[in-house]
Structure formats: structure tokens, C-alpha cells
């Protein structure tokens, strides 16, 4: 740590000693402490790795990128201060935050200053506020869930479902989107089970599942809770198919839940397991650099960095307004901009879309059962 401190101090000195270089400032505002720390750290590292690669390859339009990190502390009040600071510092674009409560606040401020913001949040409300400076790095749950429910209705023949969800702003987003879709498709909800943030004991929740009969259980929990839930399901011997979105079949869940994860089904957008060569390579580089397996938040951050680079180059200048204008209605092809990993489109509200997959966990590995087209 001391070495780290000295290194930082030396770097600061070196920077102040040099004449001001033309460089592109990016503000990375993420949850580095508080309840969002795990998600935020992943996102931050993804952004960092993305821009380090970009700098190694000559920067954006020949200018090196300087990232400044700001800790939102998972607190909207602090987050608002950090956005203001980033703007005062003269950033061209902002990456983060992951928790939508902070994103909602940051959007108000960034909009007034005309700074584009690449968020990791998936809450539906974010792109429905007519804010021309917000862009997603993963589709909102109102966009991802319909793909899943469509598959459930058409391929699995689901009529009745139980819903298990995290009673947090993350889980609530997925829960609301799922209930809307379920109503549209005429699913009958036989059980609706909210769980707590960081819950460790899922026996009561699984007991409730045991008492009902449903064609499928929709599980919308974060990684660690998913793993604990899957183990409890295995223990109590619940046989209904479990279907999740993004988290349930993720790499981290499989690592934590072990063989209890086998048989879990899920829709995945950006995960290390999507079986795309560019993604697999990115995940390997990430592991080498940071020593852990990135989750979808890290990949969102990585995609954000590369999207900023490619858009700035398409626009011909690294200017906030030019980036925001160019983003609307844009499609970035992985062939032209390899860093986005998959062909990705943004619409006029900043919502994005791309292909995704329906997978099943078999023998501790994800197996793709269907490719779901972009919508």
C-alpha cells in the first residue's frame, strides 16, 4: 500500500511538473463503497481496462484519455456532488453509475451541463425521461425481460409462474417489468416472493415455493443471493424450472453455487459466458489484470469506454455535444469497433439493443439454447 501511495504521489508530481497536455478527460463515477461496492468496483475496472487499451493503441483521435474516478458511496446525495465535481473538472463524458438511484440524480445535473453519461443502470425509468444525454451500456429491464418472457411463453409453454425477487431498486426494476409482461402474455402469478438485500437464509422463501405448483419460477436476484437461493432450492428438492435474467446463470453464480446451479435457465446479454470470441478474450485479459472474473457490470464499463472512443471518432471530434448527438440512432458494429464486443444500437432515448442468448447451466457450464434477436 505504501508503494502504491508513493507511486500515486510520484505520478501526481510528474503530472503537475509537465506542461498541460491535450488530453481527453473522462469522469468515472461509480459505487466504490456502500452497498453498491461490488457492482461499482466491477464497472470501474471495466472502464479502466477499456481506456487503458485505448490509450495503448494511441488514444481517441490521437489524444490520450485521462480517467478520474469519483466514489458515489452508493448515496445519491454524494453522487450528485461527484457529478458536479466531474463537470467542474471539465470532463467530456461520464461513465457510471450502476445503481439507478444515483443515475437518476446524476442525469439531472449532467443534462444541464450537456455532458453525455454512459450508465450501467437497467431500471426502466432512466430512458423514459426524455434526457438526450443518457446512454445505456446494457438494455433496460423493460427491454430485456420481454425477450425472456416471449421465450418462456413460446418455447417453454409457461402458463403459471412464481416470482422471487430482491426487494431493492435493482430487483424492483426486474419485478415490475416482469409483472407487466406476464400480464400481457396472460401468465398466472401463483406466488410473489420478495427477498432482502444481502439475504443469507433462503429457507423460508423456498418453503413457500415448495407449497405451490408453477410451470416456472422467475428469479431476479443479484449474484450472491442467486447462489444461496439455488443451493437452498437444491437442498429442499424443488423441481420447477428456474428462469433468470442475466444474473441467475452467470459465471459468478456457477462458481459460488457449484452443482446446485445445474439446470438453471436464463436470458443473458452481456456476460463473460456469452461464447463470443471477443468477449472471451476480454474476460481473459481482465482476469489477468485484476485477478478476478468480471461480471456483467465490468463488461458494461468496458463497452462504455469503447463506445465513447468509437463515437468520438465517428463524430470527428471529442466534444460532449458531438458525442451525444452522434449516439442517437447509432449502430456500432463489432467489426468496426471491436471493443463493443457485439453489434449494438442506441435509439433516440438512449436505450440500446443487441442480440442476446437463452442459456441453460449444464455441468457447471453455460450452454446456449437459443439466440434471441435484438428488439
Amino acid at each position, binding site marked *: 500500500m505504501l508503494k502504491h501511495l508513493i507511486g500515486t504521489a510520484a505520478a501526481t508530481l510528474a503530472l503537475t511538473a509537465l506542461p498541460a497536455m491535450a488530453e481527453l478527460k473522462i469522469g468515472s463515477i461509480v459505487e466504490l463503497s456502500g452497498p453498491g461496492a461490488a457492482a461499482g468496483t*466491477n464497472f470501474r475496472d471495466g472502464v479502466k481496462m477499456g481506456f487503458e487499451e485505448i490509450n495503448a493503441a494511441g488514444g481517441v483521435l490521437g489524444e490520450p484519455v485521462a480517467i478520474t474516478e469519483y466514489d458515489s458511496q452508493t448515496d445519491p446525495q454524494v453522487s450528485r456532488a461527484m457529478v458536479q465535481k466531474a463537470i467542474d473538472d471539465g470532463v467530456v463524458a461520464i461513465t457510471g453509475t450502476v445503481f439507478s438511484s444515483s443515475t437518476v440524480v446524476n442525469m439531472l445535473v449532467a443534462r444541464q451541463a450537456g455532458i453525455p453519461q454512459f450508465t450501467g443502470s437497467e431500471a426502466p425509468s432512466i430512458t423514459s425521461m426524455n434526457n438526450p444525454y443518457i446512454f445505456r451500456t446494457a438494455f433496460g429491464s423493460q427491454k430485456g425481460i420481454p425477450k425472456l418472457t416471449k421465450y418462456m411463453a413460446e418455447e417453454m409453454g409457461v402458463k403459471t409462474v412464481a416470482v422471487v425477487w430482491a426487494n431493492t431498486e435493482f430487483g424492483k426494476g426486474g419485478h415490475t417489468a416482469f409483472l407487466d409482461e406476464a400480464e400481457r402474455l396472460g401468465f398466472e402469478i401463483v406466488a410473489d416472493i420478495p427477498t432482502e438485500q444481502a439475504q*443469507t*437464509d433462503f429457507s423460508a*422463501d423456498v418453503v413457500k415455493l415448495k407449497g405451490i405448483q408453477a410451470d416456472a419460477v422467475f428469479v431476479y436476484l443479484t*449474484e450472491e443471493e442467486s*447462489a*444461496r437461493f439455488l443451493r437452498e432450492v437444491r437442498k*429442499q428438492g424443488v423441481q420447477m424450472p428456474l428462469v433468470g435474467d442475466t444474473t441467475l446463470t452467470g459465471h459468478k453464480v456457477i462458481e459460488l453455487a457449484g452443482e446446485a446451479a445445474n439446470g438453471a435457465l436464463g436470458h443473458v446479454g452481456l456476460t463473460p459466458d456469452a461464447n463470443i470470441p471477443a468477449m472471451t478474450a476480454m474476460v481473459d485479459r481482465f482476469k489477468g489484470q485484476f485477478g478476478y472474473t468480471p*461480471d456483467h457490470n465490468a463488461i458494461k464499463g468496458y463497452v462504455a469506454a469503447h463506445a465513447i472512443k468509437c463515437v468520438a471518432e465517428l463524430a470527428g471530434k471529442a466534444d460532449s455535444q458531438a458525442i451525444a448527438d452522434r449516439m442517437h440512432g447509432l449502430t456500432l458494429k463489432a467489426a468496426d469497433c471491436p471493443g463493443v464486443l457485439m453489434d449494438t444500437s442506441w435509439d433516440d432515448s438512449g436505450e440500446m439493443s443487441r442480440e442476446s442468448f437463452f442459456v441453460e447451466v449444464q455441468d457447471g457450464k453455460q450452454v446456449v439454447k437459443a439466440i434471441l434477436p435484438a428488439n
Partner: protein
Amino acid sequence: MAELIQILISGLAAGSIYALAAVGFTLLWQASQTINFAQGEFVMLPGFFVLIGMALGLPMWPAVLFALVLSLLVLGAAFKKLIVEPMLPHGTLPLVIATIALGLLMKESVKEFYGATAQPFPAVFPQTVYNVAGASVSAQDIGNLIVSMLAIGGLQLFLNRTRTGRCMQASAQNPGVAEILGVDVKRMVLYTFLINAALATIASVLISPIYLAKFSNGETLGLVAFIAAIVGGFNQIRGALVGGLLVGVIDNLSAVYVSAEYRQAMPLLLLIAIILLRPQGLLGTKEGRAV
């Protein structure tokens, strides 16, 4: 019926671990009037010591031993010498603040130096599941319950039946008189802190396979232990045991039969009721202190 049995057994298994954390809590309170707001982190940390030991190449059980030794040194001796002892003359509040800061320090250090995401942790008991009257009971549940009971029962015997144990109790109840009677009060207080560290290590090894090792595990656990200690009685070891089991069962019962959204509220309402109706706790005895 099977449902109720399932809930009760799962609740008891979870509650037995709360009890371990709560017992340590009451021990520290008795010995030094320390309200340890870092108790949850005390249970979180030894799990990481085990993981570090295993990363250094030790097999599981030697790694647990390694963790125990580290915990005794860090959470027992160093905590007492460096933090509690210099602060005791200042009253309880600075110490409360210091333990809040200590909890933050432990949590943030694990996050920065080990990682922000949860880690798998080797299981202590086989993954067998038995069917008891229609309820699924794992070897882990039974094992956790038995180990916690043994640890707490053994502690109770030690305190009541051995000379050292009785000296510890005397030091806790009236340090002045104990000193006059020739008891080495400082040493007895140190023993209390060491026992707390050992209990935390046991709890950590038992819960980490279920909770998965994560820096933030202490947040809820510390709170639950605190509630369990108050409910059971802050000055009795068996009070903490009953409090822990009760909180575990109530939590599960209310999640199924009352409201999943308000499951956390039930133990708290119990806490408030206890404070108003029986402030010394279910099994506690009245303390003479007025302020």
C-alpha cells in the same frame, strides 16, 4: 406440518450461529462494558483468514487453525490491548465510536485487499440432506446446531465449574472486589477477549460455506447478534443463546406467515416489546447500575 418443521429447523440452524455471535457480544459487555459494534465484522474476518491460509497452500483444517491463531492475536489480544484498554477510562461512548470505526476498517480492508465479490468457501460438513417428516434437513444444519450448542455449553461449564471461569465472572461482576481477593482482573478480561475471538472464528467457519465469504457479511450479522443479545438478556450467556435461536426462528416464521417484506421488522418489534416489558431480557437478571 412438514412446512412448519422445515421452518423451525432452518430457523434453529440459522439462529444457532446468531447465538454464537451474540454470546461473544454479551461476554465483552460483561467483562468491559464494551458494546462491540464490530462484532459482525469479527465473524466475517476469520473466514478470510482461512482463505488466506489456504491460498498459502495449507489444507482446510490447518488453515482453520491458522485462522484461529490469527483471530486470537488480532481480534482478541490486539483489540483488547490497543483499543479497548486505553479507552476504558473514558467511558463507553468513545469505545462505541472506535468499534464502529473498527468495523469499517475491517470491512474496507477486506474489500480493498481481498476483493469486493463473494468467494466460495469449503464446506465443513458433508452435503447430505436427510428427510425428516417431510422436511429437508442438511448435515450442515445439524452440524451447525450441534457445534454451536457444544461451544456455548462448554463455555458455560468453563465459567461455572473451573477456577479461572469463576474468577472471570467475579472480575466481570465486581472488578474492585475481585482485585482485592487476588484475582488478576486484567488477565481475566484478556481471557474474555480471547474467548470472543475463538467463538467468532467458530461462527465464521460455520457460516462462510452458507453465507459465502464477503466483506459485507458482518453488516446484517452484527445487527442480528445485537438484537439477539438484547432479547435474551445482555448479561447472561444462556440468554444470548435463547435470543439467537428465537430471532432465527421468528425471522423464518414471519417471512412465511406474516410478510416477507416486513420479515426484518418482527425481531425488532420483539426487541422493543422486550425493552418495554422486560428490560433485562428474557433470561437476564437486573443490573444494579442506575446510569
